[in-house]
């Protein structure tokens, strides 16, 4: 008995130290990654890059034999269009599913749903890409009479399907976190179940629901292989959701293997990495501020 207790007092600080290291390592990794990505691209970024051309030109000719040009506007538009479409589909569906699972369905059905949705999250992104390439492409051509089925719509649908599980599980957690006394009080006042959800639960859980949606956006901006295969990988600003596009992530994935280390092309790809990093940073920061703002009220 006393032996056990002594072990306990010895182990306590060690375990605490280990956990502390785990916590700090997260910060270390993020800083480390940012440092290395920045270092690879810094020379070109500081000395050669025409920032205005980089952000406002659609001419992406990294290996032109006569005149190399690095303009990422079309790639930015590609990432934005696919992400926005995906969120327009995934956020209502995901939050709807979360509300249904948390409030309206029987507990047995709930377990089935959760397992199925977790399975959806376990499908590797390259498999989603294949579905986009082989199943959705002919379907979209047929249904929309489109010239090609690899386009914003295809990528957006695939990405929506990939983000729904995240939105559902985080959204459901947020709703679960609302104390039952709220529900009981509302129902006791004579509201219907839907009035209770709409007037009481959603306002009470909005921070968590917002976080769910924004994590979905993060997934959308960062997803690579599935959109590489489903969007058509064409450098252009889309006129409609039936046009093929190319995203920032897909460009890095497709071209980094070929770019000789430390060449201009290689460095520009790392600058795109910095750009992506900044976009997700801003999204997260805005999310944080919004959530804090709501709390402040």
């Amino acid at each position, binding site marked *: 008995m006393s032996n056990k207790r002594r072990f306990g007092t010895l182990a306590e600080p060690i375990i605490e130290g280990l956990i502390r290291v785990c916590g700090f390592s997260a910060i270390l990794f993020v800083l480390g990654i940012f440092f290395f990505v920045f270092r690879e691209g810094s020379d070109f970024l500081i000395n050669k890059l025409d920032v205005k051309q980089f952000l406002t030109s*659609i*001419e*992406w*000719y*990294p*290996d*032109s*034999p*006569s*005149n190399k040009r690095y303009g990422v506007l*079309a790639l930015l538009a590609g990432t934005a269009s696919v992400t926005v479409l995906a969120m327009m589909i995934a956020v209502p569906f995901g939050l709807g599913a979360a509300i249904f699972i948390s409030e309206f369905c029987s507990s047995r059905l709930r*377990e089935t749903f*959760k*397992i199925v949705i*977790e399975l959806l999250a*376990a499908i590797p992104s390259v498999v989603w890409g294949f579905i986009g*390439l*082989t199943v959705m*492409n*002919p379907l979209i*051509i047929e249904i929309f*009479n489109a*010239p*090609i*089925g*690899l386009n914003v719509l295809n990528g957006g649908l695939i990405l929506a399907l990939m983000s729904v599980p995240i939105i559902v599980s985080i959204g459901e957690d947020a709703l679960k976190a609302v104390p039952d006394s709220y529900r009981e009080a509302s129902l006791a006042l004579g509201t219907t179940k839907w009035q209770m959800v709409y007037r009481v639960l959603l306002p009470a859980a909005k921070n968590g629901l917002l976080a769910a949606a924004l994590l979905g956006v993060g997934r959308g901006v960062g997803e690579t292989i599935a959109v*590489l*295969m489903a969007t*058509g*990988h*064409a*450098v*252009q600003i889309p006129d409609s959701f039936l046009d*093929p596009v*190319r995203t920032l992530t897909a460009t890095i994935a*497709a*071209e980094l*293997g*070929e*770019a*000789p*280390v430390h060449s201009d092309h290689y460095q520009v790809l790392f600058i795109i990495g910095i750009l992506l990093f900044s976009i997700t940073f801003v999204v997260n920061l805005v999310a944080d501020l919004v959530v804090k703002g709501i709390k402040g009220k």
Partner: protein
Amino acid sequence: MSKTAKLFSLNIIVALSALLLQTGCGKKSESGDTTEKVSIQNQGSDTMVNLAQAWAEAYAEVDPAVSVEVSGGGSGTGIAALINGTVELANSSRKLEESEKAKAQQNTGKEPKEYMVGYDALAVFVHKDNPMEEITIQQLAAIYSADGSVTKWSELGVKNAGCPNDEIIRVSRQNNSGTYHYFREAVLGKGHDFRLGSVDMNGSKDVVELVSKTPCAIGYSGMGYATTDVKMLRVAKKQGDPAYAPSIETTLNQTYPIARPLYMYTLGEPSEHLKKYLDWIHADAGQQIVKESGYVPLPKDGSLESGMPAKE
């Protein structure tokens, strides 16, 4: 309840992956037990990846002590790996550029050595319902080049009924592809760029796959990748010239205008087992596989260096 379910499914996944790993390892050690195995890392051209794989499999029976590990990724990827010294043998469907040679020399201290191992005719594919039968190099350039202006099938005089809005969907390759570089030089001309907005696919097979499902599309890929779902166009040098279908004969007698040699590169003199492998590839057995895989074998009489000229 939900937590146990989660844990349970996690356990299943872990168990399954462990099983996969084990069977994977089991196979390796089984074949490696008998003799010390030498492995050759072979990477590069996506056009050649099927061919390289076929060679590797056949060679495993010729010399069980050597295992050749093949991966694709594109000629540029293979060359970059050669320059960085991470592969012994790079496949490339284009010639190494002088700057790349210099870079390899500077990086590794060895000069890349070139081996011509066969030819590939670059086929131009359209959907099987497309009524088009032949195309000229100028027309191809007008479709693909940044200076060209053809965007509709009707501008080529083609009535493509399967394609409701008449738009030509240009299917191209990502810029790590040797096929992409060859097409740019041979069809668009030196110094010219592709027009932006083409659908850039990752592999030769993906191009054919996409064209077979897209009535509006046109694409290019090695003729070895042809399937029954796509149509190979006959290609003419210019308007009025006879058009030829890609084949072994038209490639070797140089009537088919877009055919190119396929290369393998080593860093400096190859090691003994690598040299044996390359010799075998050049011998009848290896060249027979070139033919079976849908590529064009080296002419019997010609030596390695005196093949068809790479460019005109």
